[in-house]
């Protein structure tokens, strides 16, 4: 194990990549930027919150290395750690805009959202994805997954968006960890004790065969540094989240009558020829669709009764100059893991296809069509074949499409009458710059179900519920979500199922107000600027952003 990169801690990893005496850490362990949310839950914090930001040079090129410490709380992203990444990457973006080329390199060793700061993790990760999309116009954003932890959860969605992904054979990349799939879908779906199955499905070796990893390197500092230097020189871009037609073609050819084995999938992957896919607008049907809060409000807002679509779970339509998009359940869905309205493979790619088309259609228009997301997503799909094919890329495709639309000037507005959970919310909701939610007890906003979150964080459900009392980001209800400051409006007095004509008029008015309030804003900064965010919800985020700003060009 000579000169292993994997065996190093995050800070040593960053230093090992940089030319001697060029490294300078931004917001380091002596700066007292510690997560305020861990100690109230009796969890020992770390002085850098598990994120190392290191400026420096690699072979004479200016870089920023973002190195995630996989050994601290599984490399999970919380408020402070997330804000460090976002603030530093936004600095890199500013520099590149001014013509000072700085290459961002992200060392992913992460389980995704830090479940102990759940909703902060989701917000932060969506903000990271947003800045990555913006950066890619200027420089490649280079990803490295060295392993032991690998890359999971929301940060795998981020990984799918990066320009170029380098990994060692000690890494695994997936959206849902095997334990969570087993918890949510049962041991027959994915046996989390079967280590061979896990590595054969999620390991770098398999991932590199099907376009989910771009380069496999040996676990030595030198070979990893060589790969990065080469990528800085060649600026390759995998365009991983732009293969929507390919994946929709692949899904059409999938035989869902039997369990997909790895060899068959690899052959299928090689044989698919991408054909143009377009998801036509929803039309009125004569059969009622599977009931959901999302479907109800989509139909009322667009005036389409019994809306049907060529992809039964993805509805979109234009009304009053706005494009409405909803992901809805279909109890007869041929994908069994998506029957409750989860966001699966088809949903992610179809939404991306719709949003990309809107952006293309409005390319030369000065006023861009507003996009309104009707959000009622109970989660992402938990399934074996979803992971084998790469559901993180599906979710990454729609998240990237929404981010690009917003950055191109489309108002992207959330209307949340239902659940907004985890990867589903990242793919369909969290790239919006104004969120309107109904104040209804039935709404869940979270990163993971209680059963799974308890299992992963090794607590009982009772302990978990106790923690939600002290840390609003851990809670599951919309009233606690409001305390984070991210909402544009929490609408009182309208229940999730109360889509009366009068209420629909009210919601449409609020959507219009939200669009007007944008006033040209294409960022996600609104979330930091609400009175609640400033007073408490994003206090730590704002402190981190201020310090990154001060230390950046010292």
């Amino acid at each position, binding site marked *: 194990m000579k000169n292993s990169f994997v065996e190093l*801690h*995050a800070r040593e990893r960053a230093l090992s990549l940089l030319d001697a005496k060029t490294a300078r850490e931004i917001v*380091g*362990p*002596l700066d007292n930027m510690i997560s305020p949310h861990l*100690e109230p839950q*009796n*969890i*020992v*914090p*770390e*002085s850098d919150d598990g994120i190392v930001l290191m400026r420096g040079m690699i072979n004479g090129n200016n870089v920023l290395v973002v190195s995630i*410490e996989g*050994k*601290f*709380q599984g490399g999970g992203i919380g408020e402070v750690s997330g804000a460090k990444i976002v603030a530093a990457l936004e600095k890199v973006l500013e520099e590149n805009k001014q013509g000072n080329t700085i290459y961002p390199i992200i060392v992913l060793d992460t389980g995704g959202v830090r479940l102990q700061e759940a909703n902060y993790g989701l917000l932060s990760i969506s903000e990271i994805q947003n800045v990555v999309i913006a950066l890619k116009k200027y420089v490649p954003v280079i990803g490295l997954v060295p392993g032991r932890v690998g890359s999971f959860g929301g940060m795998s969605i981020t990984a799918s968006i990066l320009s170029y992904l380098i990994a060692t054979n000690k890494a695994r990349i997936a959206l849902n960890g095997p334990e969570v799939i087993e918890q949510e879908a049962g041991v027959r779906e994915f046996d989390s004790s079967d280590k061979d199955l896990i590595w054969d499905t999620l390991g770098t070796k398999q991932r590199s065969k099907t376009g989910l990893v771009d380069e496999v390197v040996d676990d030595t500092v030198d070979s990893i540094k060589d790969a990065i230097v080469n990528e800085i020189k060649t600026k390759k871009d995998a365009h991983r989240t732009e293969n929507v037609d390919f994946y929709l073609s692949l899904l059409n050819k999938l035989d869902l009558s039997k369990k997909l084995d790895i060899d068959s999938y690899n052959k299928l992957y090689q044989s698919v020829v991408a054909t143009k896919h377009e998801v036509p607008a929803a039309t009125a049907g004569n059969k009622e669709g599977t009931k959901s809060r999302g479907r109800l409000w989509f139909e009322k807002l667009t005036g389409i009764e019994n809306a049907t679509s060529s992809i039964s779970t993805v509805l979109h339509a234009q009304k009053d100059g706005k494009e409405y998009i909803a992901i809805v359940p279909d109890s007869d869905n041929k994908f069994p893991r998506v029957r409750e309205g989860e966001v699966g493979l088809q949903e992610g790619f179809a939404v991306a296809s719709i949003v990309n088309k809107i952006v293309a259609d409005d390319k030369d228009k000065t006023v861009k069509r507003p996009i309104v997301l009707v959000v009622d997503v109970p989660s992402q799909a938990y399934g074996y074949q979803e992971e084998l094919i790469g559901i993180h890329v599906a979710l990454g495709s729609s998240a990237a499409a929404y981010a690009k639309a917003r950055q191109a000037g489309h108002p992207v507005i959330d209307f949340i009458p239902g659940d907004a959970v985890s990867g589903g919310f990242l793919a369909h909701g969290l790239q919006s710059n104004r969120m309107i939610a109904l104040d209804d007890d039935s709404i869940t906003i979270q990163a993971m179900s209680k059963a799974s979150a308890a299992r992963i964080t090794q607590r009982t459900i009772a302990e978990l519920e106790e923690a939600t009392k002290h840390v609003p980001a851990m809670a599951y209800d919309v009233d606690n979500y409001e305390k984070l400051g991210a909402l544009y409006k929490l609408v009182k007095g309208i229940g999730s199922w109360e889509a009366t004509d009068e209420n629909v008029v009210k919601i449409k008015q609020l959507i219009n107000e939200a669009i007007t309030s944008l006033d040209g804003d294409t960022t996600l900064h609104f979330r930091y600027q609400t009175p609640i965010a400033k007073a408490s919800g994003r206090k730590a985020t704002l402190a981190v952003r201020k310090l990154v700003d001060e230390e950046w060009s010292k």
Partner: protein
Amino acid sequence: MEKLHFNFDTKDAISKPVHVGVVASGDLEVIFRPTDKETEVNIVTGSDGFKEVWGNVLQRFFDRYPIQADIEINDFGSTPGVVNLRLTQALEELKDEK
């Protein structure tokens, strides 16, 4: 999780702040900061009920190296041997002329 606090009457001033270690399973991070007040050690540990052991490990360390510092420790279940190792490593960093 338990928070512990110790004071020591030590007088060898240190010249700069240093940080070593990671809050990984069985490991800890240690921060030394210069101070002109009494030496203080503030510990956050994931393993409850080891106050006496911490007291002994620290006493032994300060007997040998009577530095005057403001010390912060975040511990995730490390053994006394590992604690001593990290404290000594932090001392090494102090001597490092980087």
